[in-house]
């Protein structure tokens, strides 16, 4: 089986499981919405908050809800002992990693859509005007975040304190994504050029997906 087909099959499995349970989708979207509300209460003092607050809120919401989603996604695999079944299946480990990465990016795309719309309503951010560049930015940022988070989410499957460790491991490593994401969003909102940050995220994604594919087997799989 080619890698593409393997990834597609694994992804289909994740999508079907999620469409039946809808647990991750509802949970993460609702969590993202609550985060925007909390930030709105924290920062909204009657006047329109500065642009960098908007981009900060957007990316913090992505990082927090992304961690929640990853943690829960692997928890579900662990509870059903399905990760073992996947490892026994005749598929390559990199397909497993890539399918998890794409699945998490798809889920996060929905969360980001809701968070971005809420932000533009509640904090009057003009996110809609730059929708295409923003979509590209969010996609690249989410893939970069997911590349780190899916590896450690899978690797922490057996750890005792995985809920504590996951953010501790993932946030310092994904700081470049958060810096690039917030800087680029601010630039877009101010009508400036964000192409440097888009290229930066592209490079980050390429490097971290390559390392992820490379170390997934020894880190997350073998005993």
């Amino acid at each position: 089986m080619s890698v593409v087909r393997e990834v597609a099959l694994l992804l289909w499995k994740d999508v079907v499981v999620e469409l039946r349970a809808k647990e991750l989708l509802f949970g993460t979207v609702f969590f993202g919405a609550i985060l925007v509300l909390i930030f709105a209460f924290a920062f909204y003092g009657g006047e329109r908050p500065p642009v960098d607050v908007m981009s900060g809120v957007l990316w913090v919401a992505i990082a927090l809800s992304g961690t929640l989603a990853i943690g829960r996604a692997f928890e579900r695999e662990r509870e059903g002992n399905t990760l073992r079944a996947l490892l026994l299946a005749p598929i390559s480990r990199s397909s497993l990693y890539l399918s998890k990465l794409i699945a998490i990016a798809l889920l996060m795309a929905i969360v980001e859509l809701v968070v971005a719309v809420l932000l533009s309503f509640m904090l009057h951010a003009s996110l809609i005007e730059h929708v295409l560049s923003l979509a590209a930015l969010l996609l690249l940022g989410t893939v970069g975040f997911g590349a780190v988070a899916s590896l450690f989410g899978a690797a922490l499957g057996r750890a005792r304190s995985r809920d504590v460790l996951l953010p501790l491991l993932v946030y310092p490593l994904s700081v470049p994504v958060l810096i690039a994401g917030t800087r680029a969003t601010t630039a877009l909102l101010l009508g400036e050029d964000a192409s440097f940050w888009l290229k930066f995220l592209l490079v980050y994604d390429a490097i971290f997906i390559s390392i992820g594919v490379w170390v997934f087997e020894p880190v997350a799989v073998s005993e």
Partner: protein
Amino acid sequence: MKRLGPFYLLCLAVAVIGLAICPTLVVLAPRETTMGFVQKIFYYHVQSAWLCFMAVFVCAGGSAAYLFGKSEAGDRVAVAGGELAVLFGICTLVTGPLWARKAWGAYWQWDVRLTTTLLLLMIFVAYLFSRRYGGPGSKKLAAGLALFGAADVPLIYLSVSIWRTIHPKTTVVSSLQPGMRGPFWAAFATFACLFVVLFGMRMALERSRAKLDELYLAAEDAGLLDGDA
């Protein structure tokens, strides 16, 4: 302690003598004209920063050997490197702000080097965390983290490099006054030997630990530990 090599003993001697005489050398070094006395922290700060980055490479190299070559020695190298990275990282981030308070008027600036070093320190604190609390498989998890961390450093550097930078450049070292060079390199030799000494001690400790585990398992297999269990 019978396996101490001559290199290790030499490093130990240099480290001990260096730690005894370096403070005097540093005090006797010429006073820098603009910064005055606070400049002397430079003799500790630069060395710590260099060795912190050195330790990161050692840790990443050891982790790669452990992950791909299944080398237990690689894991011991990695844990010693990881701990030294945190130790020297803390030294760097404590001495830096002391100087910065006088030079820049603030303990902390979101400068490229400061931010990169801070994040590097966070990554390696996370490394030690995951080793300590990661449960089964934590060694592999931590090794993956070390590789990701080492790859992350240039990107962090790049991502913050558009902010204005006020940190002195590395060319400071090559443009030192003649009187400052001696103490600087003496301090560097001391710190480097201290690094080797601590690294060797940490490796020896891990070796003993591995041996103890082995003996424990062997004793258990032989039925010698029934009473304690």
